[in-house]
């Protein structure tokens, strides 16, 4: 038994060591080109609890960089060398990753989730390495430092919907009464910050006792919804699909919906919501989303579909793939602007930020989402969303690009 134990254990340890060494030995193949490659860092939660969103986003990042290098000839002839690492939605791993980005002289970096960017923020800001996150949140962009948000954050979602609601749905006089149901993390907190700062000015009545929080594991929200007055006009839910489904189901059970208006932030407004709750329950629910859908007729759709079908056909139809493809397109554009304005030999992270990122002006990202610009004092790169409504189980867009107003938090 002792020999067997020894052999098994030494075998296991050898396996681990070999895997580590193998990985360390495979270095990125350097193509013999005439121009120096431009190095960037990318990190997505491709394993771990967020893998369902993170894996397609990682695939899209890698596919798009491949597209940029193969078909567009890189950025002005320079190959884009992308260091892509998986953060497993683990904050300490994220810190080691951003350390590596800094050590390996990446010019900028991109991240998929606001949570991971929050973890990487401290070191990135300290080293003046700029980066942007596909899903943003106010703590990243305010006060504005070197971290930017690619798409409008959860607070912007609320602001955009609130504006749309007041303009198009609210038919009464006076102030509509709004309730919030929030996930107990930054997804919910983002909407809460915007609502608490902006409701008064926009003309919406929002009381503290109408703001609820729920955990991701909630199984029933009848308790919280019962405490709402009967004449509540609109309920805004900023959460992920499963708890959103529960909240809406509870509202239907209590007879509150249909009756009031329900709207969801983009984190929860996906086809999974319809699946989890059932199409009849979520009929007529509104939502906002920052990108187009897969079959929309926009310039970048063709190439994105082609690369997706070629390399990662399982990801076709996944909305997060679109955001990350757009993210890498924006990265390429930033590098292009930097090379154009400063010359390829003078590139450092600070130069790329000042001459590339900050010079973004109405870049259309192939129509995949709202135009991307940098305005001083506002680290959100794209500020528009579209408002959708669920009809017969399908998420139908009912507006064009709606810009969400800038709300400042002290």
């Amino acid at each position, binding site marked *: 038994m002792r020999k067997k134990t020894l052999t098994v254990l030494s075998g296991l340890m050898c396996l681990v060591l070999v895997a580590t060494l193998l990985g360390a030995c495979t270095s990125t193949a350097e193509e013999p080109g005439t121009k120096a490659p431009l190095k960037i860092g990318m990190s997505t939660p491709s394993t771990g609890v967020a893998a369902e969103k993170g894996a397609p986003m990682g695939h899209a990042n890698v596919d798009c960089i491949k597209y940029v290098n193969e078909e567009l000839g890189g950025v002005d002839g320079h190959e884009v060398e992308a260091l892509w690492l998986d953060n497993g939605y683990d904050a300490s791993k994220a810190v080691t990753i951003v350390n590596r980005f800094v050590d390996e002289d990446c010019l900028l970096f991109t991240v998929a989730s606001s949570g991971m960017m929050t973890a990487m923020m401290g070191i990135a800001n300290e080293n003046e390495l700029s980066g942007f996150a596909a899903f943003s949140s106010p703590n990243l962009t305010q006060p504005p430092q070197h971290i930017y948000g690619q798409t409008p954050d959860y607070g912007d979602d609320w602001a955009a919907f609130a504006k749309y609601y007041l303009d198009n749905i609210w038919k009464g006089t006076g102030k509509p009464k709004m309730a919030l149901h929030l996930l107990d993390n930054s997804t919910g907190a983002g909407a809460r910050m915007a609502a608490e700062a902006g409701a008064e000015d926009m003309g919406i009545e929002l009381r503290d006792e109408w703001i609820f929080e729920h955990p991701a594991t909630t199984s029933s929200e009848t*308790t919280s919804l019962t405490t709402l007055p009967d004449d509540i006009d609109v309920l805004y839910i900023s959460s992920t699909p499963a708890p959103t489904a529960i909240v809406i189901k509870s509202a239907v059970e209590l007879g509150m919906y249909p009756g009031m208006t329900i709207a969801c932030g983009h984190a929860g407004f996906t086809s999974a919501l319809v699946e*989890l709750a059932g199409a009849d329950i979520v009929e007529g629910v509104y939502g906002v989303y920052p990108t187009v859908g897969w079959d929309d007729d926009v310039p970048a759709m063709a190439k994105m579909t082609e690369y997706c079908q070629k390399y990662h056909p399982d990801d076709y139809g996944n909305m997060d793939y679109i955001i990350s493809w757009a993210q890498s397109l924006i990265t390429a554009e930033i590098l292009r602007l930097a090379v154009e304005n400063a010359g390829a030999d003078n590139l450092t992270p600070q130069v790329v930020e000042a001459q590339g990122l900050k010079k973004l002006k109405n870049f259309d990202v192939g129509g995949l989402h709202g135009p991307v610009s940098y305005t001083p004092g506002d680290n959100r790169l794209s500020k528009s969303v579209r408002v959708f409504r669920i009809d017969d189980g399908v998420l139908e867009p009912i507006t064009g690009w709606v810009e969400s107003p800038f709300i400042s938090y002290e």
Partner: protein
Amino acid sequence: MAELLQFTITGLTVGMVYALIALGFVLVWKSSGVANLALGQLVLLSSWFTYGMLAQAGLPIWAGFIVVIIFAVLLGWLIERFILRPLIAQPILSLITITLGLAYFIEGLVVFIWPASVAALPRLFPVEPLHIGVAVVSQQYLWAAIISLALFGLLSLFFRYNRMGIAMRATADDQRAVQACGIPVTRIFSRSWMFACVLAAVGGVLMSSIGGITFGLVGTGLKAFSVVILGGLDSFLGAMIAGPIIGLAENLGEGYLTPLTWPGVREVIPFIIIIIVMFVKPYGLFGEERIERI
């Protein structure tokens, strides 16, 4: 007043579902003295397997259920045979840790086989809620409560009158004596794990039909711990009573305390209850006092 009724009813029904999952835990503890910390993950695995059978393989509901039960039995047998049997005489730390390792492993396995992070089961119960006075309760919860009660009844009878059940209780009390009597202890462990997995599967199916299949099922497993601590680790009756108590405490706390304190206070109530119980009555309401002798 109407609110109080609503809170109470929601609390009671939600609590019954917790109690169902807690029953599985008590079962394993009662028969083998092992704390099954992989409870939440077993619930998750069974739910996903149900989804796999019903939605992906497209089996009709009754056939799917039978397959799920068989799967749960198999799973229990596998776990006991390969993971727990080698550790039969080890100290409790190793046993607890190995269930933790198992929990990790199952989480990875679930992501491995079903990469989607959420899925919905086809509807098992009608959606129309029942009205009790001015409060509403969804039929899913009611059915879950009824099934829990039925299972509780079955288990109690089994442990009291069935030979295998009595053998299980004896094993929990004193393994050596049972071995001396000629009862195969390993077979008893096997059976108890199989039952526990079946209970977890049933609990999982009920919970996922309510809220869909997400990683949150693991969190519900943790709440089941608070149920067993309050009720007593080795008492079925304790689990059935403590479940609704915890559910009530959560919902009443949420309804009445939230305006006074912070939103989200519902989350921490089961854990505060655990700490209080530890100080006041460590063995729970119905648990058996352990008297240690040197």
